[in-house]
């Protein structure tokens, strides 16, 4: 937090309208719940208004991302359904810097593209497994394949995606370096 010139209503509105969507997706990546993500971002913006005397406009965005991440992680700790992944993921996300966040966002976007390139059957398996959070057994029953078949599809498709992602992420290195320098 830096002491700066108090934000005007117009500047605040611009800050909100230009960044709400990015912050919403940032929270959604953590809480995986649209309503919670929307509430988290709105609460953080209300808080920024309360602190407008002490937050400079040029540092506000960084403050917003950090606050949204911290509040989302707090929400996540209260959602028991994510317990198996929780500790490692929370530890990883808690230590994210602004550069890590840029890298993470680029990785998620690249992953989305990769998912769309997968054959329909693979996408269906991945959707049921990771979006619907079904077990391998449930996915196997729903699609009429074996449990080993589900595991193979998941791991082979991700092995392919790992290779493509690492190639794609190499392209981001110069951009990330530029972001660091700025």
């Amino acid at each position: 937090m830096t002491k700066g010139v108090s934000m005007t209503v117009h500047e605040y509105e611009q800050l909100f309208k230009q960044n709400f969507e990015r912050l919403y997706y940032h929270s959604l990546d953590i809480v995986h719940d649209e309503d919670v993500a929307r509430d988290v971002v709105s609460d953080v913006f209300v808080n920024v208004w309360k602190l407008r005397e002490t937050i400079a406009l040029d540092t506000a965005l960084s403050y917003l991302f950090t606050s949204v991440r911290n509040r989302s992680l707090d929400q996540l700790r209260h959602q028991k359904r994510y317990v198996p992944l929780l500790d490692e993921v929370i530890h990883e996300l808690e230590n994210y810097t602004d550069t890590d966040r840029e890298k993470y966002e680029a990785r998620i976007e690249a992953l989305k593209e990769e998912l769309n390139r997968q054959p329909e059957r693979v996408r269906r398996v991945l959707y049921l497994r990771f979006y619907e959070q079904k077990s391998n057994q449930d996915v196997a029953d729903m699609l009429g394949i074996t449990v080993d078949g589900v595991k193979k599809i998941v791991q082979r498709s991700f092995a392919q995606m790992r290779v493509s992602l690492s190639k794609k992420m190499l392209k981001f290195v110069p951009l990330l370096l530029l972001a660091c320098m700025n």
Partner: protein
Amino acid sequence: MEQDNKHIEGQEPLTPLEQWELQSAMNREHASAPDVEAAWHDVSRRLDLLVMEEEDASSHVSQPLWHRMVPFACWAAGIAAVITLIVGYRYWSGLQES
């Protein structure tokens, strides 16, 4: 979920973070885009309430004590004046009768 990723030979299981990223990517894919205008409307309504509360609080704080005492002083002066008039009138009537 981690348990479900093991036991496939020759394949590296997904790390928790990779699973998380996959979930996040799918969430972004399937989530409806936020209605920024509706969110702004909601937040600006909350801010209006906040500003009203702030103004209310600051008006109480900035008002000196004697400002707040003025209405009570006026009431007390009024009541004292009425009592004085009644007592004075009765005293004056007593004098007239005697």
